[in-house]
């Protein structure tokens, strides 16, 4: 089965609204990272957060390792936030590979 599940699959917001993206994984994660990809663009690392809460700018990630979940909160969304957000985790210690979810497509309208 799929090891990393992201929800929702897509999300449409008005500019200024907040977004909450979820990531659930089926095994213990020793590493958890959130990425952003603009259409046709490269993958940009947003937050590296294997446990606890991390902030950067308008982004907040909370990972609860025991519950095998992580969330990404985007406050005061902007049109330029539109794109695909990926959650990726390392399933087990020192495997040297990240397993990605299918992504959440975010569209922010004016």
């Amino acid at each position, binding site marked *: 089965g799929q090891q990393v599940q992201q929800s929702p699959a897509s999300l449409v917001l008005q500019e200024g609204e907040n977004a909450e993206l979820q990531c659930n994984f089926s095994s213990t994660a020793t590493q958890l990272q959130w990425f952003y990809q603009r259409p046709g663009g490269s993958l940009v690392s947003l937050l590296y957060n294997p446990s606890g809460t991390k902030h950067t700018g308008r982004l907040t990630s909370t990972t609860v390792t025991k519950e095998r979940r992580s969330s990404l909160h985007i406050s005061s969304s902007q049109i330029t936030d539109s794109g695909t957000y990926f959650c990726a985790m390392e399933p087990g210690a020192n495997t040297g590979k990240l397993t*990605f979810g299918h992504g959440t497509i975010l569209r922010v309208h004016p």
Partner: protein
Amino acid sequence: ETAVFQTPNYHVTQVGNEVSFNCKQTLGHDTMYWYKQDSKKLLKIMFSYNNKQLIVNETVPRRFSPQSSDKAHLNLRIKSVEPEDSAVYLCASSYYTGQLYFGEGSKLTVL
């Protein structure tokens, strides 16, 4: 700020040809990766190298072969491309089990 460099960024070729993608990182990382992103945007790891040693080799066709000259370089060669190889190939680097940094990707189109 791009610190993982991939070339070429785009390549169009015909079935049966050989293709090579080059990747270099200037971050001083000891681990490099190749991921494949398909038309549905799903990302899957293909290979990873730690200090020039192959540590991950997922089930990929034999026509794919990684080549590492040192820990800052990891190239990907495809011996005889097939239509299903059309995808974006993404190189990444990290310290072992640390945060990954990706290059801009190499989009391959096989006619």
